[in-house]
């Protein structure tokens, strides 16, 4: 079974990269390099070390933003899920945040917070936080009424009911929110480097485009996707390790 999923993964990669190679050779557009050209450019960027110095810059707002979003996002989400009043008060902000056209808000952010790290962290948070908050609050709110009643009838305090019943019950969905939030954070980090000030990977992308070095541009885009996929895979492993598959079966089914 494991071998089969591995070979499926390899097969789908070969198909996608093959299609990319073919599309590049046709060519679909003058500005669309082949897969091999892009990989060669990625190799050069790696040898020169450019890509590493770029990621040091890009990861700063990403890591800070994702950590803020995870910490406050889960905290707010739990609170929203527990309190109807707080839900009524705060939820609309995140729903608006999730559907707002971010690119249009960036000039506003620059006006308030300047062109430094703060604005970029904000962009990452705006992308990552809503999905974490909304998933967490939904998961908390949907905790089975009967296990909460069980906790009350066996004399659990409010704190014990939250920590020992609601949080474990909500944690699989909270993890889904975290995964979605982090991938949105990646988008936010690159977007901020393209729209605010070109640094890091965003700088490679916009600079290569301006000098028509399309292979390098696509190499940079490819590397960020690769990094995101790798990171999300690691997070999924962690998730599986924590829950050991025991949450697959519902007790009352």
């Amino acid at each position: 079974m494991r071998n089969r999923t591995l070979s499926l993964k390899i097969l789908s990669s070969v198909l996608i990269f093959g299609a990319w190679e073919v599309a590049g050779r046709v060519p679909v557009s003058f500005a669309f390099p082949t897969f091999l050209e892009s990989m060669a450019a990625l190799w050069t960027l790696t040898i020169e070390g450019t890509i590493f110095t770029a990621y040091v810059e890009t990861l700063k707002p990403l890591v800070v933003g994702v950590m803020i979003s995870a910490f406050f996002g889960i905290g707010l989400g739990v609170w929203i899920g527990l309190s109807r009043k707080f839900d009524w008060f705060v939820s609309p902000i995140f729903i608006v945040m999730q559907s707002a056209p971010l690119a249009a808000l960036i000039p506003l952010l620059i006006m308030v917070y300047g062109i430094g790290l703060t604005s970029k962290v904000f962009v990452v948070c705006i992308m990552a936080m809503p999905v974490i908050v909304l998933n967490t609050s939904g998961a908390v709110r949907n905790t089975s009424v009967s296990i909460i009643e069980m906790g009350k009838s066996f004399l659990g305090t409010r704190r014990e009911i939250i920590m020992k019943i609601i949080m474990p019950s909500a944690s699989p969905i909270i993890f889904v929110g975290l995964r979605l939030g982090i991938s949105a954070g990646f988008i936010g980090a690159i977007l901020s480097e393209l729209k605010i000030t070109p640094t890091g990977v965003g700088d490679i992308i916009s600079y290569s485009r301006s000098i028509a070095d399309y292979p390098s541009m696509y190499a940079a885009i490819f590397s960020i996707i690769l990094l995101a996929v790798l990171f999300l895979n690691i997070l999924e492993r962690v998730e599986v390790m924590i829950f050991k598959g025991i949450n697959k079966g519902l007790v009352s089914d």
Partner: protein
Amino acid sequence: MNAISTSSKAVEVRNVFKNYGEVEALQDLSLDFPRGELTSLLGPSGCGKTTLLKIIAGLLPADSGEVMVNGETVTGPGPDRAFVFQDFALLPWASVIRNVAFGLELRGVGKSEREAIAEKYIADVGLDGFELKFPHQLSGGMRQRVGLARALSVDAQVLLMDEPFSAVDEQTRRKFQEDLLNLVKHENKTFLFVTHSIEEAVYVSDQIALLLPRPSRVSEIIRPSGFRDKGIDSIRRDSEYLDIVDRIWDSLRTYVE
């Protein structure tokens, strides 16, 4: 033991009213539950029997009236009562032993002590060897045995059972009913048992409170007397058993759509 807890009534319900918005769930309901006996709350659906049980458990507030357990007024859940849930209410992420010990965990009992107690009750309900299994690996009947072991392990004097056998299959159910009779005999506890099955109520009860709906009231209290000591195997053939079943059905049939 003090004078109050040796009185013959374990639970007293006095003039309880409960409305859900416009709907009258319970109206001026009074009922006594004798100590050491099993009392069934029997009635058609919508007669408020689960509502009454949850008020006694302290999970729902009554609009007015009073519930007393061992002479003390109920204001919320207490250590003198333990609840067995219709849908078992187990923690899906916790093993059988943690689920059984969970009531003790919430009471602050240390890990080794509560697991020793839990192990005893797991064996008592016949789940020896399943301590480390998870709820989804058990059958419905076994899950309810976990729920029962959890309620027994906190050693409350009053056990509140909300249709505990309605989600298990017929054969398991019969076994449960027999086990319940043994439990009532050997554990010195008071059992409050909600059911919608007439046969089940007559089979297991020392006292049956027949509730009629809209608004809920106690229409009749029946105390089967003749067949309880004749042995488990002959109950269902006893003529008193059959008469009571028929009599209850006569009272209930007009309320069933």
